[in-house]
């Protein structure tokens, strides 16, 4: 176990370093100079001024030196400054990360709460009527790009019925009730796509578990059906399905980018879109790296948790 944890953590760190290098190289390789973009059509700018601005931003140095100072700063919690308004990236990110984390966590929870009972119902009779309906609905749900689901929800519940706000966000600390009202539609939009993934994973694991010899033994002993399903089968199926939650967390983070944009939520996703449109690489590289880090961290946590909880994983893949 100890060896596995060390290898797994080391791989994650290497992944993160490689990811940061790719982000940095791609952003630097692209045409477009942030200084010129920032100056726009301002008249009478001397080459000396441009040179001075470039030096202030540190983009006159070699790519390797820039990468080194970026990563060095990141390790100290200093994410650099925006190319445009001199705001510190860390404070921009600090203001935005709460909304994204809340949206992501609420969406994953919502998806799981809906998906578990649905998957149980579907797995009781594989290829039966319930299973077919669930399969059709989940295939429809998976077809929604999250922002398209967001637009449908917006049309029905904000435009037509007027029940929920169409745009904006109120933080949990300011007004919990308004916070919930603003989060309902965005999290349903993401859960529409995430829940079918959980359903399909868990259903497959449950069908396997219900066909296993230990279930037949339990039934042979006269254990009630409900207890067989919930206690024997579900317990065994939940852990394999847990690994899928890491992937779904990543999917949710990605989906949140445009959902935040549609609902005007000030999160990391909308910050990334804004800075990409402005070519503010200083903000963009740190935001993208942070989103990648969250994804890698989620996968790592889920992997380690599943392994810690499930002795079968330790037995089968002892060398990781």
């Amino acid at each position, binding site marked *: 176990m100890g060896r596995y944890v060390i290898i797994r953590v080391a791989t994650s760190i290497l992944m993160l370093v490689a990811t940061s290098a790719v982000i940095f190289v*791609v952003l630097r390789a692209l045409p477009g100079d942030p200084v010129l973009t920032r100056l726009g059509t301002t008249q009478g700018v001397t080459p000396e001024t441009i040179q001075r601005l470039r030096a202030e931003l540190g983009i006159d140095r070699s790519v390797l030196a820039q990468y080194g100072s970026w990563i060095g700063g990141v390790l100290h919690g200093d994410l650099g400054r925006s190319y445009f308004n001199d705001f510190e990236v860390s404070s921009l990110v600090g203001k935005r990360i709460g909304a994204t984390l809340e949206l992501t966590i609420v969406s994953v929870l919502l998806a799981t709460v809906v998906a578990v009972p649905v998957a149980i119902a579907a797995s009781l009779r594989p290829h039966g009527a319930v299973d077919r309906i669930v399969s059709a609905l989940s295939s429809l749900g998976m*077809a*929604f790009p999250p922002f398209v689901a967001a637009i449908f929800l917006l*049309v029905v519940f904000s435009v037509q019925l007027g029940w929920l706000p169409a745009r904006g966000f109120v933080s949990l600390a300011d007004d919990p009730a308004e916070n919930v009202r603003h989060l309902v539609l965005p999290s349903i939009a993401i859960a529409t796509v995430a829940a079918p993934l959980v359903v399909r994973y868990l259903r*497959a694991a449950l069908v396997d578990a219900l066909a296993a010899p230990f279930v037949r033994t339990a039934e042979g002993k006269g254990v009630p059906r409900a207890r067989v399903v919930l206690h024997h089968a579900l317990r065994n199926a939940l852990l394999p399905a847990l690994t899928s939650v890491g992937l779904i967390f990543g999917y949710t983070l990605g989906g949140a*980018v*445009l959902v935040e944009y549609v609902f005007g939520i000030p999160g990391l996703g909308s910050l990334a879109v804004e800075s990409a449109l402005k070519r503010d690489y200083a903000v963009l590289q740190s935001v993208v790296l942070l989103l990648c880090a969250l994804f*890698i961290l989620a996968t790592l946590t889920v992997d380690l948790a599943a392994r810690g909880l499930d002795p079968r994983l330790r037995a089968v893949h002892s060398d990781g």
Partner: protein
Amino acid sequence: MDEQGGAAVAAVRSRMRLRRSPSLLALATGVLGLIVVLCLLAPLIARHDPNEQDPADAFASASGAHWFGTDDLGRDLFSRVLYGGRLTLLIVAGSVLVAFLLGTLWGFVAAIRRGFLDELLMRTADVLMAIPQLLFALVCISAFGASMLNLALVIGVLLSPTTARMARAAALTEMNRDYYAAAIAYGARRRRLLLVELLPNTTGALAVQAAINAASAMILEASLSFIGLGIQPPDASWGTLLQQGYGFLYQNVGYAIFPALAILLTIWTLNVLADQLGARAGAQGA
């Protein structure tokens, strides 16, 4: 974004063991064919020019004259959706082609060479898959400009790591079979092994991946156009139409809903197609 999503979907798919349904496969193929034909024959079907303005008739609801209603400039939305589909489908087809060429080569080379090169190629794919795809696409398009060619190239390149993983897995399966050992024993060269032995025998898996890629490409194209970094007005793909409609939700709901439905139906059909092609390939492989 959807590289991760693609990985999640692929992981789920591989565990689902869906039941084969030839009628569902036929239905999905038929619906997809119908969508493609409708868009390609847009000039014959549409009764209005997609760019013909009629400000007096702006924001009309769906009616006999305008099946999907009209937009803010009084343009016929049915025509605009049909013509928009041509752009969307063209970009999707281009992306799938780029992803196929690049991804298959990437995966096959990794499978055949093994060792260090294999590790290098696959770890590169892992790293690329950890970066939110949409953000990557956003940066590239804002820098290179939003032409049809750029969109197809950027989206195709973004889809190639998942394609490479799948192509490598499919190639490794085939390389364990007797015919492959026989080919080596007969002294087949590497090029023959790739093109004559591996490629034709992995078409099943590659077709599944092409359907998955097409669905991902649709999502990416729609997302980029929705932000304003895709097809630019006056031309309009389904994503562009959705963006414009999103700005007028309170004037004419159909403006956003019909392009959204077109995107949704096409992706759904592609997903069903991928599921059924996968179930068929699985049944043949077993």
